[in-house]
C-alpha cells in the first residue's frame, strides 16, 4: 500500500562517519521545521557493510526502511531484485521536482530497465588534491588542467622527499637507509581509480558497458594505464608502501602534510577542511588522450516494501530540492546533483577550500559511469585485492589481467543488469 500512515516517521537509512551523519541530521531537522507534521527518522549505519546488512535483513524480515541512500555501483543488486520502487510516475506528477534540473549523467546511472529507480543526491568525481604549501616549499609547479599522466608521475617524483627535503625514490625495501618523509602521490589501486585512466587512454574496463560479461583490460590502452598505475609503487616509488598505508592511510597522510598529492573524490573535502597547517587545492585528473572522469554518485531510493511511500516521497522531494541540496552541499562532502545549486556559492563558496571547486564541475561533462551489474560489489572487492597485490608485490601484468578476467567471469555471469 502507499497510503501514508499518519504519524509514522519516514525511515531513512544512511551510512557515514559521525560528521557525515551530522549533515543528514541537519537536513532532517531543516525538513521537519520547513514541513511541520512531517517526521523523518534517521537510521544510522556506520559503513556500507553495516548498511547492506541492515537493509537486507530488514527487507527479508518484512520491515524495510522507507528510503535509503546508495551508491550507484552498489544499488544494482537491489534494483535487479525489485526492492526499489520506480519513481517515474511520482516524478511526472511532482510539481516540485523537474528531472531537467539535474545532471543527466547522474540521473542516467540510476535508471534500470528504463525506469528511474532512485534520485541522485550528488555527482562527485575524482580529482587530485594537492598540498600547495609543499609545492611552494619545494618549488615544484602546481598541477594545471590538461596535465598528462607523465606530468603527474614527474610531479610526484619531484615531490617525494626524505626528511632533509631531498628528492628520493621510495622503492627500496623496508629498512632502507632513508625513507621518504613526503610521498608524491596517494592513489588507491581500485577499479574506480583505474577506470578513468583507462577510459582516458581510449580503453575499456569491461567488454560491454551495457551488458558486461567480464573485465577486459587486455587492450593495449587499458594495459598501458594499468601498468602505469602499478608502476607507481615499485618502479617510481612515489606512492607509500603497503606497510606505510596500514600505518597511516593516504587521507591521514595528506592531512598530516606528508603527502603531496592525493587522487580521491569530493568526499575527502569535509575532512580536509579541518586542515590548519597548510594550504591545499584540487586539480583535475591527468589525461592520456582525452579528459574523462568517473562518476561518484549516491541516490535516495525508495523501497518497494515501504508502508509510508507518500511521506517518503515528500521527503525525497525536499532533499532533492534546492534547499535540501544546499544543506548537504554546505558540508562540503558532495557535489550537488542539482545543476543550479552546484553552480551556486553553496558549493563554490570561495571562502572555503578548495578554491578550485570548479574542477569538479568541469569534470562533470566528461564523467562516465561504471557498470551497474548486480554483482558489482563482489567484482570490486575481488579486483581490489588483485590490484593491491599487483601494486605492492609487483605481480606480472599479464597475470594480473588474466586473474582479473578469470576470477570475475563467474561473478558477471551471476549478475543481472538493467
Amino acid at each position: 500500500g502507499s497510503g501514508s500512515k499518519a504519524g509514522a516517521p519516514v525511515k531513512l537509512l544512511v551510512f557515514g562517519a559521525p560528521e557525515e551523519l551530522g549533515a543528514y541530521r541537519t537536513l532532517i531537522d531543516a525538513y521537519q521545521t520547513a514541513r511541520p507534521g512531517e517526521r523523518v527518522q534517521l537510521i544510522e549505519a556506520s559503513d556500507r557493510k553495516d548498511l547492506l546488512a541492515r537493509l537486507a535483513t530488514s527487507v527479508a524480515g518484512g520491515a524495510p526502511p522507507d528510503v535509503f541512500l546508495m551508491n550507484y555501483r552498489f544499488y544494482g543488486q537491489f534494483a535487479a531484485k525489485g526492492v526499489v520502487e520506480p519513481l517515474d510516475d511520482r516524478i511526472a506528477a511532482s510539481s516540485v521536482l523537474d528531472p531537467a534540473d539535474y545532471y543527466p549523467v547522474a540521473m542516467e546511472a540510476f535508471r534500470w530497465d528504463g525506469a528511474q529507480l532512485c534520485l541522485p543526491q550528488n555527482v562527485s568525481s575524482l580529482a587530485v588534491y594537492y598540498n600547495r604549501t609543499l609545492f611552494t616549499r619545494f618549488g615544484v609547479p602546481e598541477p594545471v588542467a590538461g596535465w598528462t599522466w607523465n606530468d603527474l608521475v614527474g610531479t610526484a617524483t619531484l615531490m617525494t622527499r626524505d626528511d632533509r627535503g631531498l628528492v628520493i625514490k621510495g622503492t627500496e625495501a623496508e629498512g632502507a637507509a632513508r625513507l621518504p618523509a613526503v610521498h608524491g602521490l596517494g592513489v588507491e589501486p581500485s577499479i574506480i581509480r583505474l577506470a578513468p585512466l583507462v577510459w582516458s587512454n581510449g580503453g575499456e574496463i569491461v567488454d560491454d558497458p551495457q551488458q558486461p560479461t567480464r573485465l577486459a583490460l587486455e587492450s593495449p590502452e587499458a594495459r598501458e594505464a594499468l601498468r602505469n598505475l602499478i608502476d607507481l609503487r615499485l618502479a617510481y616509488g612515489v606512492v607509500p608502501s603497503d606497510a606505510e598505508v596500514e600505518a597511516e592511510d593516504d587521507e591521514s597522510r595528506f592531512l598530516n602534510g606528508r603527502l603531496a598529492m592525493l587522487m580521491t573524490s569530493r568526499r575527502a573535502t569535509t575532512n580536509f577542511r579541518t586542515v590548519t597547517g597548510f594550504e591545499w587545492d584540487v586539480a583535475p585528473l591527468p589525461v592520456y588522450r582525452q579528459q574523462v572522469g568517473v562518476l561518484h554518485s549516491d541516490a535516495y531510493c525508495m523501497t518497494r516494501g515501504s508502508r509510508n511511500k507518500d511521506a517518503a516521497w515528500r521527503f525525497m522531494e525536499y532533499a532533492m530540492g534546492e534547499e535540501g541540496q544546499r544543506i548537504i552541499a554546505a558540508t562540503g562532502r558532495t557535489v550537488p546533483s542539482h545543476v543550479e545549486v552546484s553552480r551556486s556559492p553553496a558549493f563554490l563558496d570561495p571562502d572555503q577550500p578548495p578554491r578550485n571547486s570548479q574542477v569538479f564541475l568541469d569534470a562533470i561533462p566528461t564523467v562516465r559511469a561504471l557498470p551497474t551489474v548486480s554483482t558489482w560489489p563482489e567484482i570490486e572487492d575481488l579486483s581490489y585485492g588483485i590490484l593491491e597485490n599487483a601494486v605492492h608485490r609487483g605481480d606480472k601484468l599479464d597475470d594480473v589481467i588474466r586473474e582479473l578476467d578469470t576470477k570475475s567471469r563467474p561473478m558477471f555471469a551471476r549478475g543481472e543488469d538493467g
Partner: protein
Amino acid sequence: MLTPYLVGLLVLVLLPALVTLGMAFTDYDLLRPPSWAGLDNFTALVDDPIFRVALLNSVVFALVAVPLRVLLALGLALLLHRRAPGVGTARTVALLPTAVPEIAYGLLWLWLFNPLYGPINQLLRVGGEHGLTALGRTPPQWLTDPTSARAGIILMSLFTVGETFVVLLAARRALPRDVYEMAAVEDATGWDVFRRITLPLMAPVLALLAVRDAVASLHFTFVPAFVVTDGGPPPYATTYLSLFVYQTGFEYLRYGYAAAATLVMMLLTLAAVLVQWRLIRRYRRFYQL
C-alpha cells in the same frame, strides 16, 4: 525450571538456525522469495576458491589457536588458583582484555599491529637501526604479510581467554581439598597431581570448554577479520568462514549460498566435536558420578 531456557533455545536459536539451514537448499537473496535450488549451492561451494581459502584459514586457525587458548587458560587457572602475593592482581589482569568490548578490542589491536607506529613493532625495533629489529630482521608486517596477519589474529585471540580462564578457575577451586592433601602426603609430583587428579577431575569442564572454543573459533575470528584485517592481506589471507558467510550473505546478498556455507561449517564443527569427544573419551568414565 528448564522452560525459559528451552523456549529461548528453540525460539532464538534452533528454529532460526533450522530456517537458515533450510535456505541452504534454495536460491535466496534476502530480497526475493527463495526458490528451490537443490544441491546447487553445495556444488558451487566446492568450486569456489574463496570458500576453500576461507575453510583452510578457519581450520588452520582452529588447529593452532584452540589448543593454545585452552592450554593458556588452564595454565593460568592452575597458576593462579592459590593465593600468593600478586596472584589476585594477576587474576584480574588476565581478565582485562576480555572485558574490553569486542569492537574496541579489534580496533585496539589494529593500532597495536600498525607496522610502523604500532607499539608492538616499535618495541621490536628497540635497539635496531633503520626500522630493523635488534637482530637485524625486519619486524613482522602484521597487516600486510599473510602469515603475520594470521599469526596476529591468533595472538589477539590468545589475550581473550578470560572466559575460559574464569570457568576453569572456578572449576579448579571447587575441587575437594582433602584429595589434594592426600596426594601431597603421597608425595605426588606436580605433574602427577595434574595428570592423575586435576586433569581427570576437571575433564568435563575442560572438554566442554575445548568444544566450545573449537566451535567459537569460527566466531571469534569474525570481529578481528571484520574490523582489523578486513579479510586481507589480499587476496584472502584472513578471510575466515565467518567473514565469508557474512560477506556472501549480507554484502553480496547470496543468502542461500551463505547458508550452505554455514551448513558445511556446522557439519565440520560437528565433526571436530565428535573427534574431540573421541579423544576425551578415555576420561568419559569420570563423567558418571
